[in-house]
């Protein structure tokens, strides 16, 4: 569940949604189709524009923000259940199949026609699709300021060792390399997952496939932590130091790099573009590079076969059981390749899951990321912590990584192996 939408998992949601659903019913004119979403703020406004482009003169499409508690949308009583749900974790489709209806024919002609094949196993059951991918999230991205790199004659790294060297050179030049939004635990888990996939795609896949995955038993988890720990342990590598990082949320880290110019890079998903564009002092300075291939460092080696990591997340449109004709119609329209265009044009920070969505309106940086997904460097992996249950969340991996950061951050690499042992012990206790 860990995601930016779930930094406070909990009770909130069901009630809001219920009350808003009530409002939607009473304030709407004529027929309405309710769509449960996790988005808020700028993203919610962008999705409103998408819906406005899709509704017909027969019905109105109304988004209902569920925030962190989108899974309660499917659990609510039948009369209050939204017609369509935009699920942020494709893994939830299989779990909730009983409360879903199969999609109307013709939306998804054959498993690989419009979407990447990773979606098939997640969304198909008995040859029937139960959800259609709408938005895809690229989670292996590093956003940086071109001007900082240019000033010191640096180029984006393609390998982990190059990245470490780049950070050291930036520190020597008096620049701070990284801003870390450690107050949002998912920022740290995303970082860690990229290193883990880079170290060993096989281990990562095994962890996501297993029914009850155990991180503590996998030596590759320890290796990934050691690599990550040595990057964080570099003195002066983190903007604001450890304490500064701990109080920074995702958007604060973006501001630290692009607004206040106190750091050169931030590891953040493609949707960070909305915030990057908002706060950037100079929009021409915004660049991305893909998360480098992990080739080890001076103390841990990694076989060269691993390749560059590519982790994705996605939002999937599903239909509640016993759908109305209007709801079916809306989902068919949402699945159209041009449906997300208003979002792409007005707000940015959106990658379409559909292969035929025109790419002309993407920003340069998002176009690069889109290419990365359509022609992946290796196998695409889905976000791991989303699939770990509570262990992937606030009291699990978030906490372990935050504690790990506190103990290694800026301390030099000497103490890292010991702290990795501590972190593994903590994981073992959590996993029982």
């Amino acid at each position, binding site marked *: 569940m860990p995601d930016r939408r779930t930094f406070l998992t909990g*009770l909130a949601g069901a009630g809001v949604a219920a009350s808003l659903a009530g409002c939607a019913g009473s304030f709407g004119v004529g027929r309405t189709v309710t769509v449960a979403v996790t988005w808020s703020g700028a993203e919610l406004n962008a999705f409103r524009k998408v819906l406005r482009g899709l509704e017909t003169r027969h019905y109105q499409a109304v988004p209902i923000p569920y925030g962190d508690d989108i899974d309660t949308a499917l659990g609510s009583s039948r009369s209050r259940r939204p017609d369509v749900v935009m699920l942020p974790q494709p893994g939830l489709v299989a779990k909730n199949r009983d409360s879903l209806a199969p999609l109307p024919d013709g939306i998804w002609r054959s498993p690989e026609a419009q979407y990447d094949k990773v979606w098939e196993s997640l969304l198909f059951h008995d040859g029937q699709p139960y959800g259609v991918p709408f938005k895809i999230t690229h989670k292996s991205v590093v956003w940086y300021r071109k001007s900082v790199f240019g000033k010191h004659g640096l180029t984006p790294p393609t390998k982990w060792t190059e990245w470490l060297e780049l950070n050291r050179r930036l520190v020597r030049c008096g620049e701070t390399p990284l801003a870390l939004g450690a107050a949002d635990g998912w920022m740290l888990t995303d970082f860690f997952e990229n290193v883990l996939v880079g170290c060993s795609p096989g281990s990562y896949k095994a962890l996501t496939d297993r029914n009850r995955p155990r991180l503590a038993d996998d030596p590759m988890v320890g290796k990934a932590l050691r690599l990550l720990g040595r990057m964080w342990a570099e003195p002066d590598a983190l903007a604001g130091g450890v304490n500064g990082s701990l109080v920074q949320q995702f958007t604060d880290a973006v501001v630290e790099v692009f607004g206040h110019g106190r750091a050169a890079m931030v590891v953040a998903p493609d949707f960070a573009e909305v915030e990057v564009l908002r706060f950037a002092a100079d929009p021409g300075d915004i660049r991305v590079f893909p998360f480098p291939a992990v080739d080890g460092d001076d103390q841990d080696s990694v076989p060269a076969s691993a390749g560059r990591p590519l982790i994705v997340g996605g939002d999937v449109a599903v239909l509640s059981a016993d759908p109305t004709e209007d709801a079916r119609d809306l989902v068919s329209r949402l699945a159209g390749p041009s449906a997300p265009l208003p979002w792409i044009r007005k707000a940015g920070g959106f990658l379409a899951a559909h292969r035929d969505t025109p790419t002309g309106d993407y920003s340069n940086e998002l176009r690069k990321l889109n290419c990365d997904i359509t022609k992946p460097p290796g196998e695409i992996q889905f976000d791991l912590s989303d699939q770990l249950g509570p262990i992937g969340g606030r009291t699990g991996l978030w906490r372990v990584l935050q504690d790990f950061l506190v103990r290694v951050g800026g301390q030099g690499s000497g103490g890292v192996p010991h702290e990795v042992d501590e972190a593994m012990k903590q994981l073992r206790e959590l996993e029982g």
Partner: protein
Amino acid sequence: MALSAGELRIEVVGREIVGRPVPGRARRSYGPYLRGVPALVLMSVVLVPAGLTVRAAFHTPEGYGLGNFVVLGDHAALHAVLNSLIWVAVALVLVVLGFAVALASRRTPGLWRVLSPFLVFPFAVAVLVSGAAFRIIFDPTPERGTVTAIATALTGDSPVWLGPGLFWLVQVSAFAWTWLGYAASLFRAGLGAIPDDLGRAVEAENVRGWRRLLAVEVPLLRTITGVVTLTLVVAAVRLFDLVLIVVPGPMQDDADVLALNWWHTTNASPDDAGPPAALALVLFAIVAVVAVVGVRGLRRPWAMPDRGGLDRAATAIPDPAPVPAQRRRGLAIAVPMGLLWAFPALVLVATALHSPLAAGLRGWWGRAGIGFDSFGAASNAGLWRALLTTALIAATATMLVLAVGVITAHLLAWGGLPTWLGRAAMTAFVILAVTPVQMYAGPLRQVFTDTGLGGSPLSLAVVHAAAGLPFAVLLLRAAFAAVPPSLIAEAVHGQAGQGWAIARVSRACRPALVAVAVLEFVLVWNDFIVGFLINGAGSPLSLVLWGEARQFATSAGPVAAAAVVSSVVPVVLLLATWPTVVRGLTVGTAP
């Protein structure tokens, strides 16, 4: 014996007495019991779920036992208990500080009139709002945070105020900002009610300084100290939303308090009601002990009709008019302190008047991006509708509390219940007044979810009314009991109906009614925890604030705008009625 007038003849016929004389007995009346029914019905909204929680606390898969209380041995729970105790200590320090401020203002004529509105208005502001104000002031970047900017300008570097350890400073500041004025006001009213001749007598005996304080003020203000301590300690133990809004995620485990730990435990095991119920029971036990001990100080004056109390409190001896020199000295203290107290509010307003972008990048003093865009952003998030719904909920709950509260308080003060029953009911109300929402949140939420009533404003208003009724009854009863019996002699002797008596008493106790109405309205308006825990959504207004505050620093503009808009109504209401509210609150506690 016979009388006759014209055609009419009236005859009185005597009869022989048979049998022994029996003692007279009043006609048994069910009236008092009937008048207890509304309170009983309303309180069942809280009582039944609280009973279920008690049951769940002792219910384990293996049967009934103490198994669920193992959760207390958990390191995190112990840490939370410890933090809650630290908060209680903070509350006690604040009581002393409040007393000191009241004393200082008494000795410096002219001070109080200027200072009191500044000290008091934060009391009308939601915890979420004060937390947001202080988080903005202590923001860790020198571009946005006032304190960080000053520290950086002076020393070239600044501690990370929201970071490990230092977040306490921010939390405690916010808590003190909210409560100090309340404590000082009540003490001030108490000091003002000390009879003048007593002061002169003590002075004549040359008792001064600490000795005078310990001999006169402290013992005379015992009851008010009880009320203030009770309110503050209960607020400290119930602390929940302040931690959520002020402390960044990674430090929340360090900052964990009992109420928050309960919430996390509920989330961790949504299907197992046992451990959270056990925690809720512990929380309840702590608060109940504090309440019962605190109320021992209140029992005497609160339970006895005090003929003079009402008049004396209503016409407290006015302060002597300050001479110009004293006035200047008073102003010299009052103006800086008032400004200090107004500062968080000024920061909120100034931040709200910047665009979301400008407020996300720079502090409230920045010159770029001034305008109303942040209000626009907050209104897009549903602020205005939330405002209307909140007003509806608060008004409904207030009217319900007033109606049921007046009937019940009159019943307990003058209604003719058997003594033991009246006493039992009073004790029950004292304990219910401090019952934490965690005691009934779980089962209520279940019912609301199952019946789909969760989102309805009416159901939330009823829960609020039930939660607010005990305090209202205690306060009103104290005031009603202080009414001179002659006022309602006809009703006491059965010559007039109870409705007439209730109307008469209520008219005489208008300050107490105003106090109850204003406090209930402000409390419900500002609520976060009851709505959040029970219908999952929070009361609509806090919900908007809370939703906007998710990425806190970069949403400072809309957060501040929502905070300002949501504070206008309670602040204006409380400031307009404050003197009456204080009179209402201290009725029956006057020395």
